[in-house]
């Protein structure tokens, strides 16, 4: 089913999304990938606050290429989510609402998604030029020294994603391929 949604979204809205839904997101999302996750995890270990309030927010696993003059961002497609798996349950338990990435997740992450009523979206891997057109503004808000791996706040408009794992734990990566398996 095709849907348009404003983000961040509430847990009630997240519960309305089903595995396989094609969703266009408009609003604010945050980027973080490997190095930023490691640093956020260390920050929590030290008992300090994360660099942004993550309750109900969406993290996009993405590290862009440099922007040309006059553009908000360079190429901006999803990176493989599984590398963030060891940090993810902790963030979900702290209130993170959803993630955008590509590829499989561990059972631990799936359990945390269901436990917290969250969603895992996939964006199309290798479509970074196309996806960059849906990003209207980009601002580094933390970990500037990490370069492409810094945390950015993005304003997106009709950013296309697909619900892979929904809040009930249905996983499109498992169900969709059955139909085409010979």
């Amino acid at each position, binding site marked *: 089913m095709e849907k348009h949604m404003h983000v961040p979204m509430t847990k009630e809205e997240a519960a309305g999304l089903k595995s396989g839904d*094609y969703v266009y997101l408009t609003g604010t999302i945050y980027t973080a990938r490997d*190095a930023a996750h490691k640093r956020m995890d260390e920050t929590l270990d030290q008992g300090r606050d994360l660099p942004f309030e993550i309750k109900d927010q969406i993290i996009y696993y*993405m*590290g*862009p*290429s*440099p*922007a*040309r003059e006059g*553009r908000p961002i*360079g*190429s*901006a*497609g999803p*990176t*493989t989510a*599984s590398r963030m798996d060891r940090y993810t349950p902790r963030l979900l338990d702290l209130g993170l609402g959803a993630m955008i990435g*590509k*590829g*499989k997740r561990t059972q631990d992450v799936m359990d945390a998604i269901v436990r917290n009523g969250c969603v895992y979206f*996939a964006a*199309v*891997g*290798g*479509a*970074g*030029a*196309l*996806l*960059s*057109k849906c990003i209207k503004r980009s601002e580094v808000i933390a970990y500037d020294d990490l*370069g*492409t791996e810094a945390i950015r706040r993005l304003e997106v408009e009709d950013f*296309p994603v*697909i619900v*892979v794992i929904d809040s009930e734990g249905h996983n*499109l*990566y498992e169900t*969709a*391929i*059955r*139909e*085409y*398996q*010979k």
Partner: protein
Amino acid sequence: MRTVQVSEITKNIKEMCIEANHYLSKDMEAVMEKAAETEKAPLGKQILGQLRENLDIAAKDMIPICQDTGMSVVFLEIGQDVHLEGGLLEDAVNEGVRQGYTEGYLRKSVVGDPILRENTKDNTPAVIHTRIVGGDRVKIKVAPKGFGSENMSRVFMLKPADGLEGVKHAILTAVKDAGPNACPPMVVGVGVGGTFEKCALMAKEALTREAGSHSSIPWVRELEEEMLEKVNSLGIGPGGLGGSTTAFAVNVNTYPTHIAGLPVAVNICCHVNRHVVREV
């Protein structure tokens, strides 16, 4: 003896880095177009359409096809009648990468130490494979490699008794495990034989072979065709969201090996499979 200035190598590598990251090669374009017609899944078709649109935007607006503009893998075939002048060859290659990635707005994705992990900020060093061949030319292949697919690549040290069935099983295992992580539809490069490192290098080089071309060895050609069909029967499809196009090509290279072994390497690449070839 023919003299080649290494600055010529630098200039070409710079241009090739930028070209590979913005324009799909003709061979990949052909297999992608064909897949758009034959893909059975509606969502798969839609994703292939997005990938097409992505390529058009990349070329028109000079935005890299993918934000992961890769670690630069450079194959050099140097004719033994070439005399290189003006500096060290490896420095010239790295200078080309540095210029291409800095001036071309490409992402710097290389860390200088695998554990300390500080970004080198210019995407150097490249991974350089040099071979001395006949003649007086220098053939350069630049293949920027993204790590979504690189991480899903495997080496299997099989036993001679595992035979051809073992090779097939290894290929299918690697592709199945890669699934949506490797940005399918993928290109599967396979090396069979040689030693531990030789089979991995063959698998990498197999990726740079023209998509749709086949080995001249009859059993290898049959293996390539059979495995492409089997891989596409896994149902993984575009984006890993189901469909009949899981791979565009399976390319297999082989080499003699030891009486005690059957090394197999499977190097997986995403649907862009960047590679540019030039001769100077």
